[in-house]
């Protein structure tokens, strides 16, 4: 079978892009290989680890469980775009001060997921934060510092 391709047009981090892609290429391979946006990571490539999390049409999704062709017409935001807008600058700063990352491989995916939790902030318990982050694996930190960072950011935002 030959490689089937399709032209897609989508908005990535605020910029309209048109490309022809292999229909079997998933969204994160497209972002990394074709667009050079290497902030989105591939860990397991079957939807378990969460390192590939990106925002599509306002919602966090597994970038490895969506085909690039399915993003035709969509608005995609990666960690690069999210960082640039400053939406999670407070979270990122607290991640650094609290040492909520070691190797950093899971961090972009973590931040993409936490961004959704912080978007409409309401009080969440530590158990609630852990449940919310249950789809993102970290193999270094033991999660404690990550939960600390989320809790602190959430409290700061709720205090306004």
């Amino acid at each position, binding site marked *: 079978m030959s490689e*089937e391709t399709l032209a897609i047009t989508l908005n990535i981090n605020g910029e309209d892009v048109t490309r022809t892609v292999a229909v079997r290429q998933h969204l994160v391979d497209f972002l990394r290989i074709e667009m050079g946006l290497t902030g989105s990571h591939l860990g397991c*490539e079957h939807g378990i680890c969460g390192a590939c999390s990106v925002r599509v049409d306002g919602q966090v999704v597994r970038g490895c469980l969506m*085909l690039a062709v*399915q993003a035709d017409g969509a608005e995609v935001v990666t960690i690069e775009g999210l960082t640039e807008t400053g939406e999670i600058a407070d979270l990122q700063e607290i991640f650094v001060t609290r040492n909520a990352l070691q190797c950093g491989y899971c961090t972009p995916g973590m931040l993409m997921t936490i961004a959704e939790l912080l978007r409409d902030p309401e009080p969440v318990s530590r158990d609630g934060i852990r449940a*919310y982050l249950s789809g993102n694996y970290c193999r270094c930190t033991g999660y404690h510092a990550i939960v600390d960072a989320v809790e602190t950011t959430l409290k700061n935002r709720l205090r306004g």
Partner: protein
Amino acid sequence: MKAPKFSYVRADNIDQTLALLSEHGEDARILAGGQSLMPTLNMRLSQPEILIDINRLDALKGISVKDGIVRIGALARHAEVAGSDIIAEHLPLIAEAMPHVAHVAVRNRGTFGGSIALADPAAEMPACALALGATFVLQGTAGRREVAADDYFLGLYETARKPDELLVETLIPAERGGSISVFLELAQRHGDFAMAGIACVARIDGDRIIDARLVYFGSEAKPTLASNTIAAIGGKAWSEATQDDANAALAGDLDPMTNLQGSAAMKLHLQRVLTKRALDAAIVRARAA
């Protein structure tokens, strides 16, 4: 790994989808949320000739209620179901189960219909649908037919849906006033596949169970209605003696699968634990109602 080569069609309407299904049969796969299909493609556990992407079929979207029946379109995302006022009001069992369905990023994309069509033995929605007496609407080139949940789940990933049929919607009678529902599951980690789980809809009078519909999942090849256990507890006070009867009867209802998550004996034990917790909770909730 990377998915194998396949053809891809972004379907514009249901007729086109059905024509493609009819043409390709089992060599075609419907791509809905993709949260189970994409992993099998990336791991090359499946190698379909063609993917039919139904994500733009508006006719399969939405959640509504009419004349006491809730309609959940096949493409309703788990996150949409979880946030739906209609579901919270009329199908609290599903609202209670939804936080157990995988993780936020998967719920944003995965669909109710996809979960029913795949019939993963550890999935929450098939068990809820069976407990609530749902009806599934299947459409083929020859027309539509309705299949009761009791007749739909046939075995491990095996359903009454034919290869040329598309699941278009699920119809579920609203939970009646006076009935109490409870959903519980045990997983190794929040959002992981269930090792054992129960979906229970009961009518309670004080500490007496008027009747209860108990569906077990996770341990079994398919969501399983526990008819022996239901008969053993119906009309009785939820006493220690009744609990012993339920534990004995459950061994006749379940045939747990041994796998990496545990032995058959351990899973039967877990289901017994959940049975007690579920009916205890039902009695407490009935008292509060």
